């Protein structure tokens, strides 16, 4: 692979049942590229958690995935309410998810911690009332 490959996904704001489609598509593409299954698993876990977060908290958004010879970069950008306290949000078990989301098996405060755990590098840029951009890198 000589040139970087760029993929873009729009995450819908109102359909929780569709969350995971972008991650599924990325998984299929990485499989076809022959990427190591262990790397694909890390990417998919990190991206799926991000997708779920965007639907639950931020009315959707846009995910841009860049695949280079060295790494896979996932940029998840939303125009949601922002995260007031990133340090607190990163704590496993801390959650602001509503009850209807919890009843579906999410909202246990594992989203952001899982994203950090399964990416090799993660940054969170957030501004209240403006939105949040999470960038995750997984090395190939």
């Amino acid at each position, binding site marked *: 692979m000589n040139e970087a490959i760029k993929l873009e996904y729009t995450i819908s704001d109102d359909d*929780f*049942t569709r*969350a*995971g*489609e972008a*991650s*599924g598509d990325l*998984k299929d593409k990485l499989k076809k590229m022959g990427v190591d*299954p262990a790397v694909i*698993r890390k990417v*998919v*876990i990190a991206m*799926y*958690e991000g997708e*779920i977060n965007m639907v639950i908290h931020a009315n959707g958004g846009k995910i841009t995935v860049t695949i280079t010879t060295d790494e896979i970069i996932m940029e998840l950008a939303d125009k949601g309410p922002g995260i007031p306290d990133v340090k607190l949000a990163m704590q496993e078990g801390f959650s602001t998810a509503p009850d209807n989301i919890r009843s*579906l*098996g*999410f909202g*246990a405060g*594992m*989203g952001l911690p*899982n994203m950090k*755990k*399964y990416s090799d590098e993660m940054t969170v840029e957030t501004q209240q009332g403006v939105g949040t951009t999470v960038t995750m890198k997984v090395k190939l």
Partner: protein
Amino acid sequence: MTIADIAEKLNFKIINEGEMKTREAKKVFCCDLLSLAMSKLPADAAWVTVMGNTNTLAVASLADAACIITAENVCPDENTVNKAKEQNITVLKSEFPVFETALMIDKLINA
């Protein structure tokens, strides 16, 4: 052991066949918290859970689970069943609780 063999021997109800006749379940895994399942569910596992929604399908597909087995007679809704058909994901149903269901499968796989 194929999922079809497991379903027959343990009398699980077939909600959606998927690849059950050819795909093998190599281990069994139980979890109802989808975020935890997403990170821990092993590939080729029979996943026993009481969560029968479309997100369960997404997690099973992303983690390469062999199949989903809903315990306690939980029946996925129509939308979930239709999605399972579209995505060719095997979904079975057990009348027993999660632990008992998983134990039965484990004993069968490792017999």
